[in-house]
């Protein structure tokens, strides 16, 4: 059973890791908790749902390409939504006291959730089955292609992101702005654009996580973002908020922890695990596993 739970945990962790990246990138660059990122995740899942439902009617021939189209579309839509969110609800508050953007983000979260609920309905939607699910069995352990796909996709995207951040000019600009807005501006970087790009990328990854979540569980609902959002945020904090590698590793750790706790301790209290981890980390090691100490300026 341990290996099986481990597999469950790694699949779950892949989704958390992708999801956590959005939180960590935004926090790194703006020192802000994007509370509405959980709704980006949810919108991504719904975009995937609509696209997957429509594709068989529009283009019945290209079935193998469906997933590719879905992910690209989901990324673009959620990325754009995230950037739009930043522009309208957060940028006016960039110089306001710290809690104001958080409150605004909560408002955005409520707003998005309810817009979706009112348009699509409050009941769960079954996700279209697109992948041919091959079940494999190794000595009692079940693994299917979807789980492998999720893991591989998540890791690939994270590797691409890491390369992007470290090797490209845009990535370098993002790191610069995250370090110091004013000096970056003096060096000729348009901070507003960079911030928008950060939200776009983080949001897009969150959207992919949403689609993966929908595919994995087979069901989506307007309020599906809240609990995974808290867990993904916990993962980001665990890894060291602001640190991209940390978010990835934090995601996997949290996923495995949750699966093992649910299997061995109690499946009823599994959500509590994430919250307890969150409290522990914030109280005793707020910089997380890989974060740096940030001196508080007086």
């Amino acid at each position, binding site marked *: *059973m341990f290996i*099986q*739970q481990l597999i*469950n945990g790694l699949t*779950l962790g892949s989704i958390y890791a992708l999801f956590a990246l959005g939180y960590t990138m935004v926090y790194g660059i703006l020192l802000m908790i994007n509370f509405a990122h959980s709704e980006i995740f949810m919108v991504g899942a719904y975009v995937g749902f609509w696209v997957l439902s429509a594709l068989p009617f529009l283009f019945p021939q290209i079935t193998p390409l469906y997933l590719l189209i879905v992910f690209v579309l989901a990324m673009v839509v959620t990325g754009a939504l995230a950037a739009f969110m930043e522009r309208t609800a957060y940028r006016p508050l960039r110089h306001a006291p710290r809690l104001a953007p958080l409150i605004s983000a909560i408002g955005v979260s409520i707003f998005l959730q309810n817009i979706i609920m009112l348009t699509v*309905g*409050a*009941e*769960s939607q*079954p996700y279209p*089955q697109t992948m041919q*699910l091959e*079940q494999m*069995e190794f000595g*009692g352990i*079940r693994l*299917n292609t979807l789980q492998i796909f999720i893991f591989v996709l998540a890791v690939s995207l994270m590797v691409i992101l890491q390369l992007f951040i470290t090797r490209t000019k845009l990535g370098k600009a993002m790191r610069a702005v995250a370090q110091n807005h004013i000096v970056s501006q003096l060096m000729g970087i348009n901070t507003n654009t960079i911030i928008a790009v950060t939200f776009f990328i983080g949001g897009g990854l969150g959207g992919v996580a949403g689609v993966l979540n929908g595919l994995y*569980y*087979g*069901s989506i*609902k307007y*309020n*599906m973002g809240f609990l995974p959002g808290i867990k993904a945020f916990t993962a980001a904090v665990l890894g060291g908020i602001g640190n991209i590698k940390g978010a990835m590793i934090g995601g996997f750790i949290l996923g495995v922890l*949750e*699966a093992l706790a*649910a*299997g061995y301790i109690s*499946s*009823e209290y*599994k959500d509590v695990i994430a919250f307890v981890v969150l409290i522990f980390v914030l109280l005793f090691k707020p910089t997380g596993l890989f974060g740096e100490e940030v001196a508080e300026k007086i």
Partner: protein
Amino acid sequence: MKLAGIIVSVGLLLALAGCGGTGEQVVKVALVCPLTGDIAAHGQGMKRGFEMAIEDANAAHKLGAAKIEAAIFDDRGDPKEAVTIANQIISDRAIIGVIGHLNSGCSIPASRIYEKRNVPMITPASTNPKLTMQGYKNVFRVCGTDDVQGSWAGNYVLDTLKYNQVVVVHDKTPYGQGLAEEFQKQIVARGGIVTSFNGIDQGEKDFKALLTRIKTENPQVLFFGGLYAEAGLITKQMKELGLAVPLMGGDGMFSNEFARIAGPASEGDFATMVGLPPSKLPQAADFLARYAAKYPGQDMQPYDPYTYDAATLLLDAYAKVNQNRDSLIAAIAGTTYDGILGRTTFDERGDTRNKQISIYHIKDGRFAYYEHK
């Protein structure tokens, strides 16, 4: 500014207070059920059955010159909302009775509020026995109860399916847990083995960890006390993890939505349902035909005929006492009603004496009738 704000608010409250309702020849019957949310399919069906009943009653001039109006409320399956709506209903004196709720978890707290002002409540779908054990004179039920349903399912598993090692999962609601407990009681009383008794949360989607553990217990069947949304996901994830045993549930699971959510994994799963299928009842044929004509393309949900009968029964009783509110409850209690579901009479607790159970299974993506008691 502040003054203006407060005056406006107070004014608004006063103005809306005027909406206390005036006395006209309008008789309202309330329907409260989940019209949105995860069990919306059942609730929407109830609404259809209800609207048909009201239409038929008006067409037959059951209450003479008085017009019968439907007052429909959505309790979303949420007990807190149910209580709020109940308070709203008892304030509206034009409402003579309530048909509802669907979830036992809503009916039970709401019934206490209706009792305060002697508003009769007839539930077409709440199956938890405790509802009628509260000693309230105004609470009635036209459907079966879970003590019968759960024990019948237990016997079925042991005698017909010939399994004696089962695992039980429930959604911790009064309905789901209640049904699961009755099932477990029966299995254990007859010498079967219940490997574990597990609770899940309504709205939960990830059952893999739980099911992985359950798999190690080697059950022959998984009994689920709960609603179709979770049931569908459980059976789907169960089969994905290699736990290839049937899922069995109760009336809360009995909806083609279950198969839609679960996909092919649901083939062969069972659900019990209170009462007999309307297609097997000669007196229901007319209702079925009219329903299909009025709502083309809509799947009839399990409680639609019950809602129809409950509403018609209520109005019949009201007509019989010449619209005298005080004698209404007594009239309902003593009623002998012949409707779509056969003859309905109430016992001293307010339960119908009609206590048959049927069982269905999923064949080709839909529930098909299997047999009955």
